[in-house]
Structure formats: structure tokens, C-alpha cells
């Protein structure tokens, strides 16, 4: 079967706009969560990984009509989408599909205007609420795509978009796919996570014994993935391989993970199997590592089940970005690919002591003394929608 290559990447998150800014921030090793600026919430005490640009700044940057009916989620998506297309040098949309992950969709405006909608005000935003509306706005930036799809599996949405795009290529339904996710902060899910009591009032401490919850973030990231031959044929320059991916369901609880991390275990082993490599071939895991008691414990157990006593270097980069929920899978796919191509392992910030039951030690200072051939990126969602991807160098 033909290999699937990554030919373009785009990203915007609290670390910055574009892969250069993001990689510099990773190397700087400073958390990029802080006080909320754009989101109108009373929870100013909660640190968030907000994107620096306002909606108006993004509209200007994207050269969109200033009165365009658009919400923050597709705006973030457009910023990342254009970068990815540009890097890939994609000019022809024939047999090219767009698979987008989001859960918040247009909620950022719905929560502002909801009560006024019923009085007949701001009704232009009613049709912008559902997840698919934003996908279409983003996709239309680029020619006549063959199809567009929207996925919403909470915090694994973007990873599942990568998987679906790849399967569309492998099954002959597309020759190229723009895949990933976008999510803006909203009062709705900030309060939702807060009501579940899983937000840390301080910067999050993934995999630490004394971790106290997650910080929410926002952002968008997309990959352009293609059949290797057709990419080479059109003169594209492949960056790396999407060598394997797995999707499984924990089937345990709506918001908690099973103690044995069954879904996570199945997602990781599924990805390894598809990549045709052994656990020992993985050089770095960009973990889901949200900083909640439940996730980090169960992910650690699942990692130990997959890798045994030989756990590879791993880190969670959530302290840099906050948890960008539906975008996390592609934000971290881009981070994983930057790690792979630069032979650099980003730090798991704010870590002091290991979780007692598992004893796993993440990489706590950025490392450039490594050679990376295969990296794994994990994303686990509410409801146990667990997915994993593996990116590999083109030549090993």
C-alpha cells in the first residue's frame, strides 16, 4: 500500500502563529498560559492558553470582509489552514478533501447572543452555531474541494480527523486531505470543565504527583497529507510519514477513564500495528497528559502496558498550550512532527514528583541530544474516544 506523507503544516495556539514561532516557544521552555484577555468570562482566576490575536486582528490578517459573519473557531482554523496549504504548495483542489474537528463550533457567539436570538437580534449567527458551519467557511478558502467533513469526538476530534483523512486516501476516495481541528475558548466549556472540577487554578502540572487539573487553551492546526506518489508527482516536498494510527473506545464512563486505560492501550497498540513497528521503535511520545488526576494516571498505566519496562521518552506539552480540546490532536501532531524533524524533545513543564503508582518520569528539560525516527501522539476524549498517531522520518 502506498505510504501517506505529510506535505504541509499550519498552527496557531498560545505559543504563537506558525511553526517557527511554535518551535521557538517550545525551545524556550516557558509555559504559555496566562490571564484571559479576549474571552468574556468572570473566571479570570483561571489560567488559559489563549491565542494572542483578537477576532478583528485575524479578520484583518486573513483579509476577510470586516462585517463577515464568522466566529472565533473558524477564524483560528483559517489562520492555520492557510499556512498548511501554503507549505504544501497545494494549488489544485481536485480529489482533495477537508476533514475538520471541532466541538465548540460557533458557541463563542451563541453564548453571547443566545437570549437575543429569540428577540430576532444577531440571528445571522444562528446558522453559524453547529460544527459543520465553520468547516465550510474554512474549506471555501481553498478552491473547489471534493468533499468536507466535520468530526466531533471532544478532545480527540483532530486526531480522528487525521485518521479519517488518511483512510479516505488509503481507500482511494481522495488523493490529498487537509486534516486537523480548531477550537476557540468559550464560556460554555470553560464553565463546563469548571463544573467538573478539573481545572487547575495554577499552571497545569501534567504527570506530576500533585497535579490538580488542566488549563484550557485554544488554537487550530492542520496537516496536508497525501499519497506519497501523487505528492512526488506534483513536485511536493514530503516532510515525514503518517505511518500509523489507532482509534478505540474506552467504553467505560462519560468523563472518566478506565483504571487500566483500555481505550488508550488499544489506540496505541493499533497505531503500532498499522505502522508495522515494535513499541521499542518509538523514540518519543507526545502524551495526552492533561494534568487531571484521572487522565494522567490512566494514560501512565496504559503506556506501561504498551511499552513495558522500556517506556520511551515522553512529555505532555499541555503546559505550553493549555488543553486545546478539539484542536489538541492536530496541535500536538504538529508539535510531534517539529520534534521529529528537529530531533528535539520538548519539556514536560511544571513537573516535580512522579505519580506514585506508576513512577513514570517525563522529560522535564528540552532535549536536543536525541535522534528521533518515530514519534507517537496521543489524544483521548470524553466518552473514551481514544486515538493515537505515529509520525516517522521518510528515511530511517
Amino acid at each position, binding site marked *: 500500500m502506498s505510504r501517506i506523507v505529510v506535505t504541509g503544516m499550519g498552527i496557531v495556539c498560545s505559543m504563537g502563529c506558525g511553526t517557527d514561532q511554535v518551535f521557538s516557544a517550545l525551545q524556550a521552555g516557558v509555559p504559555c498560559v496566562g490571564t484571559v484577555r479576549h474571552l468574556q468570562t468572570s473566571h479570570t482566576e483561571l489560567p488559559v492558553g489563549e491565542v494572542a490575536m483578537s477576532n478583528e486582528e485575524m479578520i484583518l490578517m486573513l483579509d476577510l470582509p470586516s462585517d463577515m459573519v464568522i466566529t472565533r473557531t473558524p477564524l483560528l482554523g483559517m489562520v492555520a489552514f492557510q499556512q498548511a496549504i501554503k507549505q504544501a504548495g497545494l494549488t489544485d483542489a481536485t480529489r482533495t478533501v477537508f476533514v475538520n474537528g471541532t466541538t465548540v*463550533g460557533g458557541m463563542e457567539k451563541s453564548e453571547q447572543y443566545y437570549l437575543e436570538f429569540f428577540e430576532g437580534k444577531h440571528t445571522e449567527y444562528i446558522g453559524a452555531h453547529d*460544527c459543520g458551519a465553520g468547516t465550510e467557511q474554512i474549506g471555501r478558502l481553498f478552491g473547489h474541494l471534493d468533499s468536507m467533513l466535520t468530526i466531533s469526538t471532544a478532545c480527540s476530534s483532530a486526531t480522528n480527523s487525521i485518521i479519517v483523512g488518511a483512510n479516505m486516501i488509503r481507500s482511494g476516495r481522495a488523493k490529498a486531505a487537509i486534516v486537523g481541528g480548531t477550537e476557540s475558548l468559550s464560556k460554555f466549556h470553560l464553565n463546563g470543565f469548571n463544573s467538573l472540577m478539573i481545572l487547575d487554578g495554577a499552571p497545569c502540572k501534567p504527570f506530576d504527583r500533585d497535579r490538580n487539573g488542566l488549563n484550557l487553551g485554544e488554537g487550530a492546526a492542520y496537516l496536508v497529507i497525501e499519497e506519497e506518489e501523487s505528492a512526488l508527482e506534483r513536485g511536493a516536498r514530503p516532510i515525514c510519514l503518517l505511518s500509523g494510527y489507532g482509534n478505540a473506545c474506552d467504553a467505560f464512563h462519560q468523563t472518566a477513564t478506565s483504571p487500566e486505560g483500555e481505550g488508550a492501550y488499544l489506540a496505541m497498540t493499533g497505531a503500532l500495528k498499522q505502522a508495522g513497528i515494535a513499541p521499542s521503535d518509538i523514540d518519543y511520545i507526545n502524551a495526552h497528559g492533561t494534568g487531571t488526576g484521572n487522565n494522567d494516571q490512566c494514560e501512565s498505566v496504559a503506556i506501561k502496558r504498551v511499552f513495558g519496562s522500556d517506556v520511551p521518552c515522553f512529555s505532555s506539552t499541555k503546559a505550553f498550550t493549555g488543553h486545546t480540546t478539539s484542536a489538541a490532536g492536530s496541535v500536538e501532531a504538529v508539535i510531534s512532527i517539529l520534534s521529529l524533524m528537529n530531533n528535539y524533545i520538548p519539556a514536560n513543564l511544571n513537573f516535580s514528583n512522579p505519580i506514585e503508582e506508576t513512577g513514570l518520569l517525563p522529560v522535564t528539560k528540552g532535549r536536543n541530544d536525541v535522534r528521533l525516527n518515530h514519534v507517537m501522539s496521543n489524544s483521548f476524549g470524553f466518552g473514551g474516544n481514544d486515538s493515537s498517531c505515529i509520525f516517522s522520518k521518510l528515511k530511517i
Partner: protein
Amino acid sequence: MAVYIQSAAQISIQSPLCDDWFTNPILREGRYFRCEEPDFKQFVDPMSARRMGRLLKRALASAKSALVGYDAPLDAIVTGTGLGCIETTEKFLLAMLKEGEQALPPSHFMQSTHNTIGSLVAQHLKCHGYNNTFTHRGASFDCALQDALMQFDLGNISSALVCANDEMTELYFQLFDQIGYWKREEVKAEMFHNAQTEGSFAGEVSATFLLGKEKTNNTLCRLDGQVLMYEPGEARVREAIDQLLKQGGIGWSDIDAVVCGYNAAKSNDEVYGRMVNSLFPDVAQIYYKHLFGESFAASAMGYYVAAVCLKRGEIPAHLLFKGQPVTPKHILVYNHFQNKDHSVALLSC
């Protein structure tokens, strides 16, 4: 590779969990109808049911009904939902807007993510297999179906549940009313022919299909293939149908009927009229939204209707939009949403 629809179950504005609509359809006149609900007790214990919104109960009931008599492993659950559990989403949103950002109960938030539905079904069926949720407006189910078919094509699975679930709350009905989704006046059966005004009438759908690789006595029909397209011209649709016919090993003249999503809204219906009349000028057309109403999940009922017609070898007169009743062997299911997302699928007996 052949994929079969082994069974299907629906909860809608027709009688639930049965095919009474085939022989005794309920013909509605109005603007907004909610599901005819089954007795949920046989599917969910009352303790768990109390914590679930209506849509979750419907999703479980239709999934479990589709699996009655099935005891082989289930490899995948793929869901299409345009809005997810909008009732619980609204409850959380309204509490936040009216009472402020403090002391909000988490239960409604927990059910507000779209994948709550598919993951709850997985929990109840203890299915650790492939699980995904598509939320692409009126093509959500079509996207989910394509995903399941890809998993079969790639040899990853031998069985799958493909589900469509959308509810329409009173508040959301009002919101969609503001932007012209519904007709101003009561919708009547005759408005489905030669629609002169915009807007449809609202229904709700929870439907589940069990797909498998082996044909059995209970199999409803074969699913030869499906193609999704964005804003296709006629040439692209023609190319997609050519591909499906090739997959089904048949020619254009073998198509016995085309299922179309006529919904009594002028601009929606004109797309079907133009495209299908041009591609298949002499072929019977089946409609179904006059029975099931319009919703983001409604397209699933097009497949459902086609599958039951193929199984029974009959197209009842009340489903015929155009043409003569035939004994169908091959039916195309055509769906479009706002003339943007189009899907065409071939089903055969």
C-alpha cells in the same frame, strides 16, 4: 467487497421501532413534531435513564433494537449528529446565562459533547472497537456511513453500527424558525409537489443500521457504495454514479428508483428536481421527508426507506414522488444539504 445492511431500527415521528410507516404511515400536517417514543424500560434501566436526556435514550433504544438477535462481535460504532444532545446543551447554556458562571451542575455539560451519544452506545454494548462521530449538518449521517464503509474497504472491520441521532427542542425550533428553516404556514402533503415557498417542517430522527459482510436471511439489502461531494456539478455526480454502478456491476438502466430528500422547501426541492430529472428522466422517485420531517439526521431515513423497499420488493404508493410502482432491485439514495454537501449511494437487493 460487499457490505450488507443486516438490520435497521428507527425512532421518529412515525411509530417507533417498527415499520408501520410502510403500510400505515402517519401523515402530519403542521410545522413541528417530536418523536413517537417507545417504552424505554426494555432498553435502559430506570436508574440510568433518569440521568439521560431524551436523545441518549432514543439512541440506545434504536441501537439495541438493531442488534436484536445479533450475537457476533461488533467492531465499530459510527454516529452522525448535526447538533448532538442539544437539549442538555441548552440547559447548561441557559443556566449559565441566567444564573451566572457559578455553581453550575456538571451533568448537563457532560452530555453536551456530540460524541456523548456514540460513546454511550459503546459503553452499553461494551464495544471497544472503532468509534467516531460526524457533525456535518444535514450530511452528518452520510459522513458516518462513508466512514464505516471505508473501514470495511480497508479490511479493518466485519461489522458496524451506523447511527443517526438528532433532536429538535422547542427553543431550537424557534431559532431555526428565525432563519427560515421552517415554513410559515402548516405543511401539508401537497406542498411536497411543486414547492412554491421556502422552509420545511421539523421532525426528529434516531436511526441505527447494523452493517456486516455476510448475507443472511434477515439481510435488508446490499450497500454497493457511496460517494460524498461538495457543490458538485452534474458531471461530478454522473461520474460518482458511474463509479457506484461499476461497483454494483450494473448499468444506468438497472436503477429502479431514486430516493430524494424532497422537503417542501422550494430551493431544496429544485436541486433534486434539476439533478435527478436530468440524470434519470424516466426513473421512479421516492420521497420520505413527508413522513419523517426535516432534521440534520433526516437523510438516514432515505437509506432506511430504500432498504425496506428492497427487502419487501415493493414501493408503496405513498412513497412514490414520481413514476410507477416497480419491484425494486437497485435504488440510488440521493441526499443534499443546501446544495452544498451531496451524497449518492447505491443499494441493491
